[in-house]
């Protein structure tokens, strides 16, 4: 009996001890909550959801939206994208470009300060950009620095940091040489991977970016609290050179992963912004709290041109034209996406100010009659009595499944072809797709930077994004020329021609362009979401 009692007491003791340590945490967190309550009345506190803990706040490492959302508001590069998504001088006050388009001279503004009061210097940029390219850093974004002379060599181990042509001429002047004229270079360097790093701070503390206390930024907001996996608090940065533009006093980023929970928090007033949970999309899309923004990216399908029957161009076209994209967008995905008639998404202006998509035109359009005709012709060309079996592959996901099923239905109706479906888990799917083991597979593309070339370079022969087995010399040449071309008009001409070729041979066909759909409280305004995926709170207001 006594023993039994001792055990019971022992267990109780353990539990109480554990509960006590737990309670300590709870106490601390409770304190935080009190703070929250007092500020929730405050109208200039914006409550956002980041969905997850940022991958990293080290600029070259956090190469994804979860990191950019925060990072883009904590720091600032030489340029920042404007409300119209065009690069504007930011930390740089003045940018001079040489006649041949390869030499850039940036002059940093006098009042550009770090949040600890230090001046932002050209050396901070040199340090940061070389660190981005350093193979030791192992940055997934390093390839963006290959536009800089010596960048690729340093990153692949053939060169050294000294050969990278980024040089701090003096405290405020940075000189950069590119390998080729790159008109969109100012756009690329608005990416967080190119943000400066306070060299002095970084040399003293290698892990300065892991906690709020040690984080030093130079953006519109500064990081004041970071409870990992739970919440981040940003406050207006008074040291910021353009602080008077910034209206919000505080921004809270929650990290709620579940979209239903996110919506419930929005509904109960704990968030000012929410994604739309897919099961209630239809009804919520009608609400006047919805904002829809473009996103530079395309959902598409890849044919494997090395596998029957898709070695035949006409059969590929038949499969492309048999899909009614309008119906998929209206009845399957139902998120207000735009059906895609080409690969490059809307929003890129050419030299004459015309939108690339409009100018390039509708390169693929649903036409059941023509599809059937093309299929017959293709079968004849290949001598098929019966079409070889076709398997459509997608990675396991509810939306992908619905799209695939409706495509299956369309093929059966429009072409009289029975397509079988196959789904695998994401990582396995990617591995197979890269090894050209799929016959016909679901794909998506999100632009890394805002230029049509980023879309189109995907399908050159040696691109790791190709994954179709398709190769066309003329296409490769056009892309190479477009990358070298200084004349904007000529450059777009090359890209227009390239996209034409892509759709004449149809190794891929698009379904829809991506968009960003959000619910936003009526009293919130001015949040800018760039198509390349960064969130901008500099101009945001809350009444």
């Amino acid at each position, binding site marked *: 009996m006594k023993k039994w009692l001792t055990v019971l007491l022992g267990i109780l003791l353990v539990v109480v001890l554990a509960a006590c340590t737990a309670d300590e945490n709870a106490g601390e967190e409770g304190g935080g909550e009190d703070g929250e309550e007092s500020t929730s009345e405050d109208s200039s506190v914006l409550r956002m959801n980041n969905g997850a803990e940022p991958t990293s706040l080290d600029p070259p490492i956090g190469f994804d939206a979860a990191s950019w959302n925060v990072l883009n508001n904590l720091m600032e590069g030489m340029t920042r994208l404007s409300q119209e998504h065009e690069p504007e001088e930011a930390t740089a006050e003045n940018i001079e470009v040489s006649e041949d388009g390869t030499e850039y001279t940036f002059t940093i503004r006098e009042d550009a300060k770090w949040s600890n009061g230090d001046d932002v210097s050209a050396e901070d940029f040199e340090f940061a950009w070389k660190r981005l390219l350093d193979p030791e850093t192992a940055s*997934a974004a390093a390839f963006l620095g290959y536009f800089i002379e010596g960048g690729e060599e340093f990153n692949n181990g053939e060169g050294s940091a000294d050969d990278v042509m980024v040089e701090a001429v003096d405290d405020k002047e940075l000189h950069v040489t590119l390998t080729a004229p790159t008109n969109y270079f100012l756009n690329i360097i608005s990416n967080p991977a190119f943000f400066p790093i306070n060299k002095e701070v970084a040399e003293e503390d290698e892990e300065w970016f892991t906690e709020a206390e040690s984080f030093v930024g130079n953006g519109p907001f500064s990081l004041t609290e970071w409870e*990992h996996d739970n919440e981040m608090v940003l406050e207006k940065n008074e040291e910021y050179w353009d602080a008077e533009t910034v209206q919000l006093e505080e921004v809270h980023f929650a990290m709620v992963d579940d979209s239903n929970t996110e919506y419930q928090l929005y509904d109960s007033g704990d968030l000012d912004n929410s994604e739309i949970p897919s099961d209630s999309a239809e009804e919520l899309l009608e609400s006047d709290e919805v904002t829809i923004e473009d996103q530079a990216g395309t959902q598409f399908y890849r044919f494997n041109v090395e596998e029957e029957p898709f070695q035949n161009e006409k059969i590929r076209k038949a499969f492309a034209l048999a899909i009614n994209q309008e119906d998929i967008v209206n009845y399957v995905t139902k998120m207000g996406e735009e059906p895609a008639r080409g690969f490059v998404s809307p929003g890129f202006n050419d030299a004459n100010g015309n939108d690339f998509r409009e100018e390039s035109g509708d390169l693929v359009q649903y036409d059941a009659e023509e599809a059937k005709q093309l299929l017959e012709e293709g079968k004849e060309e290949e001598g098929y009595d019966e079409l070889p079996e076709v398997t459509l592959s997608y990675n396991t996901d509810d939306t992908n499944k619905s799209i695939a099923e409706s495509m299956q239905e369309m093929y059966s109706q429009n072409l009289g072809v029975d397509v079988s479906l196959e789904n695998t888990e994401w990582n*396995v799917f990617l591995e197979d797709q890269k090894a050209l083991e799929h016959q016909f597979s679901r794909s998506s593309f999100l632009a890394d930077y805002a230029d049509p070339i980023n879309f189109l370079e*995907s399908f050159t022969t040696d691109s790791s994004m190709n994954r179709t087995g398709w190769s066309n010399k003329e296409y490769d040449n056009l892309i190479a020329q477009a990358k070298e071309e200084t004349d904007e008009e000529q450059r777009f001409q090359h890209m227009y021609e390239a996209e034409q070729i892509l759709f004449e041979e149809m190794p891929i066909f698009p379904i829809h362009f991506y968009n960003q759909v959000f619910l936003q409280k009526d009293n919130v305004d001015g949040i800018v979401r760039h198509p390349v995926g960064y969130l901008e709170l500099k101009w945001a207001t809350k009444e």
Partner: protein
Amino acid sequence: MAKYILKRFALMVVTVLIIATLTFFLMNLLPGSPLNEERSTNEAVQQNLEAHFNLDEPLIVQYVLYLKSIATFDFGPSIKQPTETVNSLLSRGFPISAELGIWTILTAVISGIALGVFAALKHNGLIDYIAMTVAVLGISVPNFVLATLLIQELAVNLDIFPAATWSSPAHMVLPILALATGPMAIIARLTRSSMLETLTQDYIKTARAKGLSPVKVIIKHALRNALMPVVTILGTLMAGILTGTFVIEKIFAIPGMGKYFVESINQRDYPVIMGTTVFYSVFLVFMLFLVDIAYGLLDPRIKLHDEGGG
């Protein structure tokens, strides 16, 4: 006893080692890699990343490095969150999962035993039927359904508790309810059936005949024996709940460690897979050990020595 514990301890080390080794090779058999991206990737960039995480080493070298990391309990950086170490992810997530878990288990055990005992005492009475209906519901309604329901009713509609996130005791109520209901129901059913069996034993009649008060008979004599099956499931239950639950933590946006078990595998985040596996197996093996010790103390007939306990 000391010899037994020592032997059990050695066995525990071997068990964990076997689990860890199996996990390592199974994990590497999975197609895909943590560095698999849909976006276009550059070869040099990819190589730098592989070198950074030692993924370019032969498998056997990686295995040795891995054994070393187990021995020192330092699993290095996560591949998907490269500026975080696995240790910091776990040490951050575990206290939160454990806090939620302890309250859940307390709730489940206390209410489960109480329900079970009352049901057994009022066998085939109204209380029995009510208690068992609750138990059947608790077992059959999945906790994520219950969670969504609780949020919708108690948080959004009635606004009594916060809907999600983790910052105050009030935030804990809904996830605890959602998590505890299932185990509570299981415990209630177990307690009821073993109580019913125990109550018919001769020694209970003897105790009653001695003139002990009914409460004393139940608590001192009946319950003690009836608890054996409950103790049996408590070990696995504790290991499972204290180390976090993926679904509930996701629904309530609780920053616990549950998500790492699932997400690390989807993302092939090797160091995190290894860290969570080793952590969980050490925890589980230790809990099972505690259960065995508890057996011996609860039931004097079970002797803990070399040939016996196991």
